[in-house]
């Protein structure tokens, strides 16, 4: 699978009339979604002062990793999710080095060392090296047919297994075992189930999406996914895998053993902080940055999932988009636009499942909780209020008003007057807001 690195130069067009002096070398390590978005933001502005190089270990151009689930589910295909094919870089005079890993950053020499032993110089370095699937403590993870769900390559291999999957031979308890009931695990399980596999998902917590949903919403979600032929084992973990070369079964901590042919581990991500920290940059969970995305070395910036900001790391795209804007403003315009880590709503890409979660999602004594329940229609909506302001929203079954709640949450709108109508959606609380403002109508 290892590909030779290749270079693209477009010298003539790179020189812009009227620009004098030597261009700065801007080197972006990583070609995931953060790098792709940063390029867009840079180009939107003015990159004439830079000679831009992108170096990434995947061989494709930047693609939309979020869309891996629909690819697995067969709802879209690979070309559709590649945002930036190699021609894109060429057309914009960007040097694109693919299939190459950066081994080290040599800050004193202001260059990086690649897996091929080459050194690339930089004036300004941007780390956008992302994250990797989190490890689980189970034994025998070296067995074949145990995958993560992170890259196009993972999806490729999963699709392969699914393609050759013999639907007639049902000797196992389950065809595919998915570990992790977070967003990624659920999307993987859904995709595999759509391919006709019998899927069992093992989740360590008591309910699905326990980082985004409360127990009730998790229960609703489980009910919907069970209808899509996914079986769930909660409050359990895989202790060890068994098999000679090929995966045969997995034994759970509870003692239960499940025979299976395929396993996807999707228990979360671990920031790829090592490259930066090894070079002496500050950081703990990730590479630490200030509000302008600068690391402890002023010539090195970092964005995306490898970053740590005020102790937080990032796994969802919205804040990363903000980071890209902040960094592009600083590099191109020398404008200091501080990055703020605002709450981000959660969405799950499973057809027929509408869910939305933002802000607080577990009710505590400090919250005023408003709940809408429609068991028959499978609709659950919860808003958490503090001081008459929305601080959390969990929607299941009908997520249409999520964005509106999110706006109110972000704007800290006082909702005390419209509280009874809030959960029914915009059409009702806006109406009610206006009516009450205008006539103060009273019951009876």
């Amino acid at each position, binding site marked *: 699978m290892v590909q030779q690195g290749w270079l693209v130069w477009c010298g003539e067009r790179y020189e812009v009339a009227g620009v004098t002096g030597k261009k700065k070398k801007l080197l972006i390590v990583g070609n995931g979604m953060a790098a792709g978005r940063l390029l867009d933001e840079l180009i939107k502005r003015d990159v004439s002062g830079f000679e831009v190089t992108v170096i990434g270990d995947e061989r494709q151009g930047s693609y939309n990793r979020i869309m891996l689930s629909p690819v697995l589910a067969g709802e879209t295909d690979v070309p559709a999710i590649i945002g930036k094919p190699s021609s894109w870089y060429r057309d914009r005079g960007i040097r694109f080095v693919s299939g190459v890993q950066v081994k080290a950053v040599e800050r004193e020499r202001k260059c990086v060392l690649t897996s091929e032993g080459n050194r690339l110089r930089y004036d300004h370095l941007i780390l956008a090296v992302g994250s990797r699937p989190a490890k689980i403590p189970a034994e025998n993870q070296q067995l074949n047919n145990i995958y993560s769900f992170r890259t196009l390559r993972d999806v490729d291999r999963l699709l392969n297994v699914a393609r050759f999957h013999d639907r007639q031979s049902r000797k196992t308890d389950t065809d595919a075992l998915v570990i992790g009931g977070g967003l990624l695990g659920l999307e993987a399980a859904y995709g595999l189930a759509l391919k006709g596999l019998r899927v069992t998902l093992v989740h360590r917590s008591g309910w699905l999406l326990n980082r985004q949903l409360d127990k009730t919403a998790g229960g609703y979600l489980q009910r919907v996914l069970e209808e899509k032929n996914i079986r769930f084992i909660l409050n359990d973990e895989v202790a060890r895998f068994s098999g000679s070369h090929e995966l045969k079964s997995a034994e759970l901590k509870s003692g239960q053993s499940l025979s299976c042919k395929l396993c996807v581990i999707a228990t979360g991500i671990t920031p790829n902080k090592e490259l930066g920290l090894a070079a002496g940059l500050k950081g703990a969970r990730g590479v630490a940055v200030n509000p302008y995305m600068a690391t402890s070395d002023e010539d090195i910036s970092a964005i995306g999932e490898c970053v740590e900001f005020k102790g937080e790391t990032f796994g969802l795209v919205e804040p990363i988009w903000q980071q890209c804007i902040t960094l592009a403003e600083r590099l191109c315009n020398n404008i200091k636009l501080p990055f703020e880590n605002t709450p981000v709503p959660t969405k799950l890409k499973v057809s027929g499942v509408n869910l939305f979660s933002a802000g607080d999602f577990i009710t505590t004594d400090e919250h005023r909780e408003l709940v809408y329940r429609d068991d028959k229609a499978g609709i659950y909506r919860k808003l958490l209020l503090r001081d008459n302001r929305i601080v959390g929203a969990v929607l299941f079954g009908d997520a249409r008003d999520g964005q509106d709640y999110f706006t109110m949450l972000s704007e800290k709108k006082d909702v005390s007057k419209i509280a009874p109508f809030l959960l*029914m959606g915009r059409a009702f609380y806006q109406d009610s807001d206006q009516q009450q403002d205008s006539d103060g109508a009273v019951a009876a």
Partner: protein
Amino acid sequence: MNMPEKLIASDTVNTTCCYCGVGCGVTAAVADNQVVAVAGNTDHPANKGRLCIKGSSLHETQSSPDRLLTPMLHGKAVSWDTALDYGASKFREIIEQHGPDAVAFYLSGQLLTEDYYVANKLMKGFIGTANIDTNSRLCMASAVVAHKRAFGSDAVPGCYEDLEQTDLLILVGSNTAYAHPVVYQRIAKAKEERPEMKIVVLDPRRTATCEIADIHLPLRPGSDAYFFNGLLSYLADTNALDREFIAAHTNGFEEALAVAQGQVPDVTAAAHLCQLDRNDVVRVYQLFAGNEKVVTVFSQGINQSSSGVDKGNALINCHLATGKIGKVGAAPFSITGQPNAMGGREVGGLANQLAAHMGYDNSDDINRVESFWQAPNMARKEGLKAVDMFRAIDEGKIKAVWIMATNPAVTMPEAGRIRDALQKCELVMVSDCIGNTDTAKLADVVLPATTWSEKHGTVTNSERCISLQKGFLNAPGQARHDWQIMCDFAAKLGFSEHFDYPHQVDIFREHAALSGLDNNHSRGFNISALADIKREDYESFTPIRWPVTTGSPKGTDRLFGNGQFYTPDGRARFIPIQARLPVHEPTAEQVILNTGRIRDQWHTMSRTGTAAKLLGHVDEPYIDIHPHDIERFGLLEGDLAVLANQGQRYFGRVKAARSQRPGEVFVPMHWNGKYAASSCADALVNAVVDPICGQPEFKHSPVRINPFKQAWNGFLVCAEDIQPHCEYWAKITLDGGYKFRLADGEFPATWSDWIKNQFPLIGDWVDVHDSHDQFYRAAGFSDGRLQVVFSAATDKVSAREMRWLEQQLGEEIDSNTRFAILAGIPGAGVEDVGAIVCSCYQVGQNTIAKAIKGGCTSVEALGAKLKCGTNCGSCIPELKALMR
């Protein structure tokens, strides 16, 4: 009034309205054993084509879900034989052991004359007791005695035309706009045509009737007799007396005048005693003195009093003193409440009457009736009047009571005590068309009776006009006519021979014959010319005013025009009146409770409560109270307040009403246990009665008033009729179900359980829950159709009602609309019409207000634009008020 087109297309029959004492002729269109439309009968003298909202909704109140279809014995359906055998054997047993005075009948002004006649005959002639009284005791007894004292007979001197043809109309304690809407319309039209005709209203309240009044005198409650004593003194002082008439046709004038002058010598005294502006009193006295044609209409406002008889006579004295009686446009005019209170009075179906205007004060009368009836057990003394009758039941002296077509558990004073009494009573029989009235719930035997459009017989209205209330529909289930039920009962007691009537006309003929028996102009009621009426003439009975004798076969419009009265010497009697105020004075913490009717409801709502349209105008028990009192008692407009007296509570919504005098509140009399948790006005009324006639003082009860401290309030809309587990609820009939307004001083454990436990059969719920318990909403569905909506809140704003929501009841609701159901609003773009003002066309206040803003500045303009007020016209006073 034009007849609706569909009326012409189908079979039509002429009948009489079953509601108030106006006695309007109704033309009903019938198809498939159903009344499909009604219109006023243009040929009927009482209404000449007009109908009020209640009357024009008659076809919408035909099918009550609570209609009783089979006889019930101790809650189980039984055969007629079983039910009547049980009742008859109990009656016999009790009579054998305790004598006939241990049983009683309690009747109603809703009964037809033929029913009344049979009941009276059975009780007084055969069972042998005069313990037969009626709810007419609650409305008309004072007028009856006042008439008898003055005229020697219970006879209304004039007719409705007099109200139109007079030059001065004084309405005393009479809110005709609500209680007698068609008479009001006739007056209003006359006033429009002859604006010089003066109208005066004497009423502590500024009622809707005052809209057409030139002068409203908001007198001190109960001070009416002072006012008329003052008038008598004034008439004497100003030489306004008809000395000739007094000398030729009356007795006792000087004594009556002396007493009046002794008590109320002049206008100043009258104004002071009645708490009125002196100039206003002078104006009215001058008008009375200066006009030949004066009609004084009086009704419950003075009748329902501990001195109601005296008030009636004080008023009649003034007419006698000026000869303003028996002439066109001149008469004292008692207007009665019920459709056939007059028929009951004619029959003598009251404890202190005998029969056909004969009385217990005359042994010849007793003997005459005894022989006419061939009565084996003739009662020879008066029986117990309503209040005393129920006291005797409470004390165990009366052990069996048969209640027909009325609901005393709601309407009697101390209604709470009446319930206790009935609960204790050995045998309670109830005949009614509705099976679950508050009274029927307490009965051992409940008998299904026919109702309007099924029952067949005559009624008499306030102007002595007899009409046929026609039966033209088949009775449902096993329902039977009251007279038939009683005849069967009589047979089971061994009196079959005397109660073997093939048809109503046979009863009517007997009644007519009795009225003429040895009459010789000694008794007012005489319809002897009808004693041989042919069956076919009876079936197409032409309305006629009694007396109907060989001398006046076409009836009699006015009495006493010849100066001849029904007293032994033919002279009218002045009665010296020592005016009295009501018995109970309020303490500093109390207000005076006044009770009465509202426009669109009838009595205890058993019929009118089933039509959504009739609850659109006023849908909830309320308390009219002066704004000063709202402040004084710490109330808030629109909130609930509680009136309390004798351990009973009346919950009502506070309505700021400058029409009330400070210190006095008004509440509607209609609500009862079927329509509200605890809003029975009469339960708070003290059992104080007029010593002469036994009529209770419904218009004057000192009560406490306090704000209701509610923990939460809300509403419930549901398809099914329930009794919510709630301290306060009021039921409002909708087209497809019911709405309840709710409030409670305490929270339920959870609102969710509270509502779901009351609808155990519903499994499909959607709800909104607030951990701070400031609100809760839920909706329940069956097969996707909306069955229940519940909205509760601690504040008053959140549980807001919308007509739109009520219209969704029973509809299939998609998952998207389920949000709207819980919100209670359809989302953007739908206007709420507001409280219904025009019940006929369901035009709401918001719509009207908008039209007024948009330039509709007259009732006519509003009518042209929105149709409001163009059908029955009942809402016109309110339309006018909205325009001010």
